[in-house]
């Protein structure tokens, strides 16, 4: 009787351990499945359309006859919008992180941090809506354009959307700087500001870099905001004051109109695959830099 009970218990514990293990490794399985299904669905496109034309083609016109699937204008659109966003987000994000993490009195910090966390939760479709109603008319009037729905509008809004990531991770990096560094710096006669920019910032540098990379990942992957406010024109324009279109916006806007299993459908999965690889690499680099903070 007792034996049977302990056997039952053993089997139960074994099954529980297996079950928990399966849940634990599920994230690997999910990532693998995502990659597999992106590949599987883009197979039809990748096997029939010349891959060189796909990667170097400068025309994206999937509904024309014959269709043309050049990814370059989309990559270009993603790139200039992301570039503009990073230029805006880096000074704002790092500046705010230094202020909140190092300089602000504790009481002010406790007010500022939740406000910035709120920014992270505002839905991208709401940001896009505000962009259409407020920012786009402003840009149009400021630069006397026919439309304010431009790459610039996308860059500005995406910059703010990346800020919570950049600020919170940079701030973590600043907080991770051991206090003895500050004490040593101050004891040598540095002012508080000198201590901040000659001691704290250099030590926190790799974490700040990681935060910018993660912010970039967020910018490149953002969909609804850019779909709504960048004008959605898949042409290569050498200016931030013209419409542009990103990879993400192309997938979101065209997937609804394609025939399931068709060439266009498959091509959208292929650009999704490219997007997946790009964001994976960005996060991979960021991960490398975050590990350095943890080792500190």
């Amino acid at each position: 009787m007792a034996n049977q009970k302990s056997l039952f218990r053993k089997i139960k514990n074994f099954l529980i351990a297996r079950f928990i293990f399966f849940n634990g490794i599920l994230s690997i399985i999910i990532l693998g499945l995502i990659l597999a299904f992106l590949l599987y669905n883009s197979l039809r496109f990748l096997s029939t359309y010349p891959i060189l034309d796909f990667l170097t083609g400068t025309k994206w016109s999937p509904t024309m006859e014959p269709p043309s699937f050049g990814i370059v204008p989309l990559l270009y659109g993603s790139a200039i919008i992301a570039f503009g966003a990073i230029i805006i987000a880096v000074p704002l994000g790092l500046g705010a992180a230094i202020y909140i993490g190092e300089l602000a009195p504790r009481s002010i910090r406790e007010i500022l941090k939740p406000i910035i966390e709120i920014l992270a939760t505002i839905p991208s479709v709401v940001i896009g809506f505000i962009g259409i109603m407020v920012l786009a008319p402003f840009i149009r009037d400021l630069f006397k354009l026919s439309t304010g729905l431009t790459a610039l509008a996308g860059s500005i809004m995406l910059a703010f959307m990346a800020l919570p990531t950049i600020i919170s991770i940079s701030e973590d990096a600043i907080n991770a700087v051991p206090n003895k560094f500050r004490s040593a710096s101050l004891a040598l006669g540095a002012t508080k500001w000198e201590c901040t920019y000659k001691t704290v910032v250099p030590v926190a540098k790799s974490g700040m870099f990681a935060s910018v990379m993660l912010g970039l990942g967020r910018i490149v992957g953002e969909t609804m905001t850019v779909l709504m406010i960048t004008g959605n024109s898949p042409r290569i324009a050498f200016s931030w004051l013209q419409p542009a279109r990103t990879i993400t916006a192309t997938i979101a806007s065209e997937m609804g109109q394609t025939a399931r299993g068709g060439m266009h459908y498959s091509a959208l999965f292929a650009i999704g695959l490219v997007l997946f690889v790009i964001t994976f690499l960005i996060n991979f680099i960021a991960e490398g830099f975050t590990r350095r903070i943890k080792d500190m």
Partner: protein
Amino acid sequence: MKDDIYPKKTITMRHKNFQQKFFYIFLLIITLIVIAFVLGIIMYLIIKGAGAITWEFLSQKPSAGMREGGIFPAILGTIYLIIGTIIISLPIGVFSAIYLNEYAKQNKLTNIVKMSIVNMAGVPSVVYGLFGLGFFVLFLKFGRSIIAGSLTLALLILPVIITATEEALRAVPNAYRHASLALGATKWQTIVKVTLPQAIPGIITGTVLGVGRAAGETAPILFTAAAFFQPNLPNSIFDQVMALPYHLFVLVAQVSDAPDDKKWGTALVLLIIVLFFSVIGTGLRTRARLKRQSGHDV
């Protein structure tokens, strides 16, 4: 007086003081720009949207091609999607965190699992949408439905729940586990009866924050769940639903002359739902952290 004795040093000190003040103010201004952006958006939405929110707006279906009526089906659809997302992601996320914190050994596999979770958090939402379309909608033949949308959103917020639960489990002192094991409890009994109850506030926080995110997402449900317009309310998990974020997108981008007050109203309702979750989540987390800190001090 001092100027005569240390003239040079005083000048550098003055210069340094000026420099310090300059940069403090500069960084303060930068921070205020960010804060002003956030508060500006919220205030503007409240000012513009508050007038549109009436009982009719919240309780009626859209009519006349979205130009009249309310947003009730979209609110309901978002609630259905939230419930589905919680039911799916909560157990998986909690078990996954239990594995990482209670079972996993320090080895290569564990490192790969941890890296996968980090990378899952970095996958763009539109890629989750593509995956949901390819896997749940077409391969598993769920069609565009609440279940397909909930599954897709669940994957999206899984990293949030896992990370929060893991953090909460890690904060449970080992003495509790040892005490339970010493009394003859099995590992599983210890987890269920001792460790997990201690971690519940942290788990709730993570879930609430994740759900807030899921409620506002559009791209993942674009091809997996969201309906442009649905005259009847859904009566099965295999039905499509209208959802607030997608409804706002439709009003803004696809209905040509939708009245502005409907758009502002929809945006404000969506913001209120999302903020509701994030304020609760952030509040719980701050409380838990303060509690933990004071506990350490004692």
